[in-house]
């Protein structure tokens, strides 16, 4: 009898784990008509969430509680309230993973399906249903799901079904195991169903889209291609003046990229063509709500404050663009490398309208495949040089030239195209092993829009716990003298392990607020803010 308990003891290596995280952001808004800050009747707005995760061997479960009382400015007001917005259970047995409840997933690059969260941006299009993931053999992954999609505290009206298969040929086929060229092919299919409740127009209730893809790796080279096709999907997003119900034209997109990498050098070239590929589980949804496809901007992700004044956003109804990047490190001791080596990164990107020809039926228009239209939406050149000046000082110099069609990109009128030059000098000075100071000087020159800006930031950190920062943005060049405003801000924070608290006070200009690399659009504001984050 004691033998039973002994064998039970040695056969069970699993432990029960509980983990989770928490984040809370609150702001106290002061009135400030000078910067155009909206009046906030509640005075204090806050967003908070907490996740709990349970794990026992191959079994996982979790849930998330969110609370917006009321949501911070810059977040969709439909986020109002509190509740459990995410809950799931999953287990894996014999290469089959079953998930019930909420889940996130992506097919390929996400062109026809990406369900993901970006909490600080207010993006969350989680699925709610059943997902199966099966690996029948090495190198083969099959995924299938059926579900509804999250829309703030509710679910969207659509039902989404999807299937994706991916094969890594060198892993699946034994004869290719030692091949120098590694190829992965995949294809995904998404079908969405939404009832047609419109008395006037006939909408397709089932819309199908598919997307094959291929990735090739050989030594220093990598090539990726992904094509997407969507059957007729008239919606609010692709509606036109002539066809307010939406157009019946199918959509397609093609994404290509190639990279070359070697020690000290990296080069990428990418291109994309998009024709009517906005894809959602609700034909009446807009903005970040109920999106199925993910079509990111093919431009550099900026983090310097003034560089976020004119951010590009993908025109899902149609655009064609190119991007190139070069990363290079000049060796220590070489002419351009200097004593400690110098790094340089170059980036170029552009986006244009597609070549459309209007037609006299519900298709709306026809477009030449990969045809470049007459209108330039965006163009940018980035040059960044990083140099270690001494043992304690590292400098980063950046130049950015941007051509920005504000009317098209932001859906406005009267702003035209903005041409701007930005220069940034950033320095990191290590005082000793515990204290360091970082500073930034930024300048934006343009003759359009709000004219020129200057920005300065100083940040002092004491490892491992403290930081203090002060910065100011000044619209000194504005043609309207009363709009030559300063936006000063002071902040401090304390970190211990995975707990962090940060406080700040000051003015925030309207536009893209990037904190820790994540950006969201915010209106102008003046006040105190607090941010608490924790993980266990």
């Amino acid at each position, binding site marked *: 009898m004691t033998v*039973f308990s002994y064998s039970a003891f040695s056969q069970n290596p699993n432990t029960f784990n509980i983990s989770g995280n928490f984040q809370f952001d609150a702001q106290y808004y002061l009135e400030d008509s000078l910067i155009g800050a909206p009046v906030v009747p509640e005075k204090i707005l806050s967003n908070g969430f907490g996740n709990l995760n349970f794990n026992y061997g191959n079994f996982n479960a979790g849930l998330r509680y969110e609370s917006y009382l009321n949501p911070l400015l810059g977040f969709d007001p439909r986020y109002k309230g509190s509740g459990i917005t995410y809950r799931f259970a999953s287990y894996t047995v014999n290469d089959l993973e079953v998930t019930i409840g909420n889940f*996130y997933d992506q097919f390929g690059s996400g062109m026809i399906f990406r369900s993901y969260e970006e909490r600080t941006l207010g993006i969350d299009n989680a699925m709610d249903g059943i997902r199966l993931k099966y690996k029948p053999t090495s190198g083969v992954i099959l995924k299938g799901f059926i579900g509804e999609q999250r829309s703030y505290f509710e679910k969207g009206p659509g039902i989404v079904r999807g299937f994706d298969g991916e094969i890594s040929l060198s892993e699946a086929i034994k004869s290719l195991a030692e091949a120098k060229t590694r190829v992965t092919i995949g294809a995904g299919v998404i079908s969405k169903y939404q009832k047609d409740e419109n008395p006037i127009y006939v909408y397709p209730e089932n819309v199908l889209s598919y997307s094959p893809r291929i990735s090739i790796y050989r030594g220093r080279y990598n090539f990726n291609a992904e094509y997407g096709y969507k059957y007729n999907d008239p919606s609010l997003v692709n509606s036109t003046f002539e066809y307010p119900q939406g157009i019946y034209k199918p959509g397609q997109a093609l994404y290509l990229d190639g990279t070359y990498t070697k020690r000290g050098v*990296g080069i990428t070239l990418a291109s994309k063509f998009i024709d009517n590929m906005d894809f959602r589980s609700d034909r009446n949804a807009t903005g970040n709500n109920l999106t199925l496809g993910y079509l990111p901007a093919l431009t550099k992700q900026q983090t310097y404050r003034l560089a976020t004044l004119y951010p590009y956003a993908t025109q899902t109804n149609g655009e064609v663009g190119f991007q190139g990047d070069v*990363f290079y490190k000049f060796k220590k001791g070489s002419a351009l490398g200097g004593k400690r080596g110098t790094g340089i990164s170059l980036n170029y990107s552009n986006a244009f309208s597609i070549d459309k020809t209007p037609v006299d039926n519900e298709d709306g228009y026809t477009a030449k495949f990969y045809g470049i239209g007459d209108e330039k939406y965006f163009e940018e050149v980035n040059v960044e040089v990083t140099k270690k000046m001494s043992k304690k000082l590292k400098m980063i110099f950046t130049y950015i030239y941007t051509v920005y069609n504000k009317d098209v990109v932001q859906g406005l009128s009267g702003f035209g195209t903005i041409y701007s030059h930005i220069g940034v000098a950033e320095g990191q000075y290590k005082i000793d092993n515990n204290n360091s100071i970082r500073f930034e000087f930024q300048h934006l020159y343009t003759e359009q829009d709000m004219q020129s800006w200057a920005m300065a930031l100083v940040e002092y950190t004491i*490892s491992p716990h*403290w*930081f203090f920062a002060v910065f100011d943005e000044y619209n000194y060049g504005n043609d309207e003298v009363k709009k030559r405003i300063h936006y000063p801000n002071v902040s401090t924070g304390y970190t211990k*392990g995975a707990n962090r608290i940060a406080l700040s006070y000051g003015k925030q200009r309207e536009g893209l607020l990037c904190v820790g690399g994540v950006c969201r659009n915010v209106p102008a504001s003046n006040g105190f803010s607090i941010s608490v*984050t924790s993980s266990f």
Partner: protein
Amino acid sequence: MKKGLLLLFAGILTCQLAVAQGKTIPSVDLKTLEGQAENTNNIRNDGSPMIISFWATWCKPCINELNAINDMYEDMVEETGVRLVAISIDDSRTVSKVAPFINGQDWEFDVFLDTNGDLKRAMNVNFVPHTFLINGDREVISQHTSYAPGDEIKLFEMVKKAAKGEPAHD
């Protein structure tokens, strides 16, 4: 028969409650820089400690932290046998820049891609940088968010303790 079953049940219960051991690394599928699937269960270091650091090409403090660790990496490996694994959360917008960027930086450690944030979510990461210290039994013994220059020195001290099997916390 009944007594046997009772003992069996007691045995199972005992080992389940037996030890609130450290959290293990969750089992999640990532991708290598060559586009192949790799489950975190295969990310091992033969009983020596590991550092798992979440980063992105657009996260400057992350790059500063990884550069600082890279400068000491050779010494760290020699002294402790530690393995640094950097997990990129770059999504499809910036993931094609990860390999060229790394080669431009000259990093000597392994990088894996977590493009839809699956591992980030499973390890309860809110924002990057977020770095975990894993002991020889693949358990999380310490974690740290944000980066201030000088943090890497404290990390090295904790790695040394972890390599000896001593407890280490921030």
